[in-house]
């Protein structure tokens, strides 16, 4: 059994959302059965993340991967996440 296939846009958006801190990384492997149980929860998280991105990027908040969102994701930008997590990599201390 495998989960429903997602569009290329969704995969690309998910990667973008994870890279810039809107979605937590660590989704299960392709075809992971465990994901099936959390499919709805995942969809909700994804929509919320898209909305947050849209709000942050000052474009209409629709929760959908629309043209404005796709354009925003193609824009040149800083590589830092927009939503910072506690990350040792960013706060490295000399030992």
């Amino acid at each position, binding site marked *: 059994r495998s989960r429903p296939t997602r569009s290329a846009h969704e995969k690309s958006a998910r990667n973008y959302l994870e890279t810039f801190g809107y979605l937590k990384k660590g989704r299960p*492997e392709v*075809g992971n059965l465990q994901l099936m149980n959390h499919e709805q929860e995942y969809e909700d998280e994804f929509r919320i993340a898209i909305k947050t991105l849209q709000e942050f990027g000052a474009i209409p908040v629709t929760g959908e991967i629309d043209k404005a969102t796709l354009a925003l994701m193609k824009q040149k930008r*800083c590589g830092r996440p927009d939503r910072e997590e506690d990350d040792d990599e960013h706060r490295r201390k000399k030992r």
Partner: protein
Amino acid sequence: FAVQGEKWKYTNLTWSLSSTRRPSQLDPYETRSVLARALNVWAQASRLTFTEINSDEADIVVSFAKRYHDDAYPFDGRGAILAHAFFPGTGRGGDAHFDDDELWLLQPRDDDEEGTSLFAVAAHEFGHSLGLSHSSVKGALMFPWYQGIQQNFVLPEDDRNGIQQMYGPKTDTTQWGKVPQFRPTTTTTTTTTTTTTTTTTRRPYIPYHDRHHNRHPEQYPNRGYTPRIPNRYPERHYPDHRRHYNTSDEHPRRTNHHHTYRPTERTTHPTTYRPRYPYVQPEYPSNPRPHYPNDPRQDNPRKPYYPEKTTQRTTTTTPSDKPDTCDTSYDAVALIRGELFIFKNRYHWRIGAHGRYPGYPMEITRMWASLPKDLTHVDAVYERPDRKIAIFIGKQLYLFDLLNLLPGYPKPLSAFGLPASLEKLDAAMVWGHNGNTYFYSGSMYWKYDEEKGRVDYDYPRNMAMWKGVGYNIDSVFQWKDGKTYFFKGKGFWKFNDLHMRVENDKQYPSATFWMGCATERSGRRAGYK
């Protein structure tokens, strides 16, 4: 605006363009001039001052790099991601990295949509260097998406509020210094984008070559060493890089009361310096700088000295089963405590921040003494999420807390839900793409639940899921770049986690890439199909 939380404890910051990672397409002098102007944007709105010191020990070190470049945030070629910077702190803190693949413009050009203003991006990144996160205010400098730059740029209100909250507003009694221009002559001076009109005495510009090489004239008497930079850390004279050795949180300038650089007497070698032996340490160094196999600095005489402890040698002859570093396959490869461990037969190599450790390959049992004395090889090794080290040998798992075998181990593979008929694992790894653990053997693989201590019930599955690597792999692991690498024979594949297939059907030679061997010796002509 958003304040990240970390801030500099002092306002007189230093900065430098990296001595080793300079822009490949830009004039370094003009680049420095642009960077100085970008810093001045923040200086004009706060109490901060910025002094260029031309040293990799500066608070803010600016570097240009492509793709993977020594941190977890690889660049992506031209477009999309332009740069990033680290928040205030010691070590890498404050540093700004720019994608060298971008078409950087030193002067804003309205009619060129392709290029990217270095000034605009630098001003944004330095905001991170000072402690600001991204702002959701469109038009703010800290807005994450590139907005170009206008002539006579003035820091927007949102950013001004942010920087002043952290460092206070600019005091009234000072005047702005003139933004310096850099000239490529030996009389080029270090510069201060300072809030006062007083200029400090500045040391002449000294090319990197002259400044940094041969700090040990007694070792390299013919290199013409001339000490020109004061040694602020005489007890740490040997090291070549601030990130590894400056363990103090104290700002270097606190020991340098006036900021004029003067040649000083060279400090004698420290008597407290100790080599890193005995070899077995209580904890592995946790990766100050990732190993880049082809990093030319591996051959740099400034790299730390790791003397061999000759008393540990029991024989001077090479055992017949000792593998050839530059011509062998690998039994297992694992990233442990940020260092690469490569296993073959009863030996292993260790590759740290400065490349391959000398004296290797060395017997595995010298590191993990609890393994069988008659050990001939290991099948798979990986570091678990709880940092314990799992070593698979035949039908047994040996689990170590660093170097100590845990009570109750070794345990049979069947204890973890693997088939009793399974003779061995080929490989094991924590997959960076999802954080799950996977075991591989022959044509099958399993997902292992670290919390339950068992493989999931709907496994094994066919290795065809991992397109391009085939069956009976030798090893797999996740490197510091977050990518997955599969090994088989004398070659390896880089795996695309999103597309679930190898990036290139043809293997790369392992010895050349991971061991830093010459291409000729690693058998490239033989092909890796």
